[in-house]
């Protein structure tokens, strides 16, 4: 599904592709390794929905800097806190975006970063709690670099 979108994107605007971060036109075989990241992070366990609020713009005019905020519901005490969160972009050449490590000293499981998105795609977050439970959330972001639709 996504591969088609990407190809369509290139068909539509070869020019703007040069501006993006992706050399995908040249080596379209490069498959995104999102599944591998997820497998490694979750060790095969199925994450549950919920607890995470992922804040991203619905439409990003510039894929070079897309603001991302994440907030995970957790008391953040020594007994129960969010340990680690991975953020993945399933349409980027490399799926990995960032791995956040929290501690009870963080006070809140909340962070903001700015990320790059090569094309319209899903951004996925998976959180690992101190008790080993996993939660996930995802958002689709439309990327329109240089004003031509993606």
């Amino acid at each position: 599904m996504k591969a088609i979108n990407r190809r369509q994107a290139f068909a539509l605007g070869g020019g703007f592709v040069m501006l993006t971060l992706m050399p995908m036109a040249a080596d379209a075989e490069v498959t995104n390794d999102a599944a591998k990241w997820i497998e490694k992070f979750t060790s095969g366990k199925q994450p549950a929905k919920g607890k995470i609020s992922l804040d991203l713009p619905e439409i990003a005019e510039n894929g070079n800097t897309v603001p991302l905020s994440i907030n995970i519901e957790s008391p953040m005490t020594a007994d129960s806190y969010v340990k680690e969160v991975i953020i993945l972009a399933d349409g980027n050449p490399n799926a990995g975006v960032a791995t956040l490590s929290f501690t009870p000293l963080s006070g809140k499981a909340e962070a903001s970063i700015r990320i790059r998105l090569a094309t319209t795609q899903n951004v996925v977050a998976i959180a690992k709690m101190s008790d080993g439970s996993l939660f996930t959330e995802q958002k689709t972001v439309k990327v329109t670099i240089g004003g031509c639709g993606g």
Partner: protein
Amino acid sequence: MADKPRIKLPKEAAKGEVIQIKTLVSHVMESGQRKDAQGKTIPRKIINKFACEFNGKPVFACALEPAISANPYIQFDAKIDEAGTFKFSWTDDDGTVITAEEKIALKA
């Protein structure tokens, strides 16, 4: 080397308060996926790790991938139980580490 990192946090906080910390460091964050005019790939050069400690204890850390924007901005929180010093560090692909320190006092 890069400019001094910019860090924003309150000068003092009440005991148990959760404060917000904003950091920004100047860096190109070359993704390793762009090509130069000759068609050669520009080698990857990014900051791959950020860490924040308070009085020697880890508060927050972040492993960064090429999908992080140039001049990485990182915002997070910290719970203040005592006065002390925050230590920040950004680790570059080439091994350089940019460090910074900020002090915080307890509200009387």
